[in-house]
């Protein structure tokens, strides 16, 4: 599969992986995400989605994080199906809420990356 174009973390399918390209969230959320290991260049896998469609569970640097879709929307990733996801996801497609177009992250977006 060829490298797809960059998308936001919350738009990955359950089980799909990507490499973080940039974090567009400002302020404290940005620090928080970085401190938790979601720095640019990190491989991240969208492990599963909570039953109500939000939050999502992602896997990065060997640890699992719960993230709201709105928070994940500010994280840009380039999907890379072959990288981490040696074991394919449960074969189930994303369910729950469709991501909004131009979803904003916490307290306004800033796409400076």
């Amino acid at each position: 599969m060829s490298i797809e174009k960059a998308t936001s973390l919350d738009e990955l399918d359950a089980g799909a992986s990507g490499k973080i390209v940039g974090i567009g969230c400002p302020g404290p959320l940005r620090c928080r995400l970085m401190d938790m290991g979601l720095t640019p260049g990190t491989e991240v896998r969208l492990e599963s989605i909570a039953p109500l469609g939000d939050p999502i569970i992602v896997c990065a640097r060997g640890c699992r994080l719960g993230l709201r879709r709105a928070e994940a929307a500010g994280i840009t990733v380039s999907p890379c199906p072959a990288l981490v996801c040696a074991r394919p996801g449960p074969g189930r497609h994303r369910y729950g809420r469709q991501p909004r177009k131009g979803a904003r992250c916490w307290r306004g977006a800033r796409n400076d990356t």
Partner: protein
Amino acid sequence: MNEIVSRSLPIIAIAGNPNSGKTALFNAITGARQHVGNWPGVTVEKKEGRIARGGKSALVVDLPGTYSLGSQALDETIARDFIMRERPDVVINVVDSTNLERNLYLTIQLLDMGVPIVMALNIFDEAEALGIHIDVEALSKDLGVTVVPTVAVRSQGIDELLDAAFAAVSAHSGEDGSGQRAEQDSPGELALALATAQATPVIEQRDQAAERRYQLAAEIAQSVITTSPDSAAESPSQRIDRVALNRWLAYPIFFGVVWAMFQFTFTLSEPLANWLGSAIGAFGAWAEHTLAAAGAPDMVVAFLVDGVIAGLGALLEFAPPIFLLFFAISFLEDIGYMARAALLSDRFMGAIGLHGKAFIPMILGFGCNVTGILAARSLDSPRDRLISVLVNPLISCSARLPVYVLFAGVFFPKQRGLVVFSLYALGVVLAASVAKALSIFIKPDVSSTFVMELPPYRMPKMSGVLLQTWERGKEFLHKAGTVILLAVVVVWALSNLPPGVAPGSSDSLIGRIGSAIAPILKPAGFGTWQAAAALVFGAVAKELIVGTLGVLYGTGGMGLAGAIQANWTPLSAYAFLVMSLVYMPCVATTAAIRRETSSRAWTAFAVVYPLVLAWVLAVIVYQFGSLLGLA
């Protein structure tokens, strides 16, 4: 509480990521010789304990779990400030061996700041079991610090760790002469300034610093982990979560756990509370008899028996549910389910501006608001904690049920269930609305973001859970006890003064207060001094409303129903029930609010806003009902 300031002892601080087994390690080091208090001015738990080893002693301080020293989350600020300002002689950096890379990020920050550290490579057994082998010597060499593998829950490696820590303390005080450390601006201050900076040009540097640290952490982790399991393989926790967070099973399991917690806290505690209540009653009767036989004046006997001993009884009846609650919370937190519960309830709690973790306190509020408020401690964000605490009294606790049952039974015998349910529903709607309103006015802080680690499931150590339960429960009873006791004594005095009046009659102070308040309640349809006095007593404990009405109408049992029928209409009765639901937190709840917010202003707010809200709602019910011809 200010032991840390005096600095007569060397200080060993314990720092590490949440879920790294930090508290278990602290317990293993200090055992029962620990003290749970608060960090000055905030409601974050502070644990410290003294230890002695080889003729030397030291103060061990457990810092709040932190992912980073640059964070602005309250807990993490405390950890950072303690390290920067108090300059502990050595910091034991607790690291989760199963998650080395992420944990090393904090280690590298500590090293960047020039903090003397000894590393506890904790949960070492689990890492081995998972097939993660860490070369301890290589890690020690790479970082230039002593590294001791530990299994805190089984007290393994604690001796070696303490030897290393005390050696570091000696080395540290040796190099600076008489234990005095140089006060000059260390390079650490610069690192700190960088870590916390928010100005735009600095953000880039901060990002780069974070990236660099993680890069370093990844490099070190890769070089010291000799074998690791296939990264694609599912971990045991992931397997459990396939069920616990399953699309169909997650909510049945979640509500099952919440139900079990509720049952555990309230059903199990009831016989204990009743037993304590009757024991105190028997003690009161014995005291009354003994004092009367000794010739003490009636007034003194009544004061001691009905005031002080009864107040003590009211306090002790809170003890069983509180201890059981703390046990349940400690257990669920330690086993790792609390994070899942938060994940599952975030969707609906998020809708009212709160974190998913705020759900458990709300549910526990149905049993008792005090327990609900105390459960809000598990929230990380001070803002969410505050809002949860402030709205919790609107959740209808079990003590209000007797009031509903009495009035609904008299006026709405056929729709009793519906009337009671409507009040519970009203409580939930009000709590949600007020939470939403407050969440708009009180600005979110960094920890209001949901970003939350899902820790691996781990079997907690029972002695640790029990110790935590005991320390938290004891501390609460100690602090809130004084307030509850005092309130009971004051109300006793109000109903028995001036001397010579029949207790609680219209001539007593409470009767006069009731008469003064009654006109205010008139628009709500129940402007009698008895109703007003019952509400005043109900402020001590909501279940007293029924008992007080019984006393004031000079009747008991079936007679009370008749008296109520004569003095209330169905409409004014419903308005009175709305008032009883909302009007103000009981004394114990107020004490808990004061304790958990550490703020007089917020406590006052928590008492005043429900009063106003209740009055407005009761008036609306009565006036609209009258307009509709329901009176």
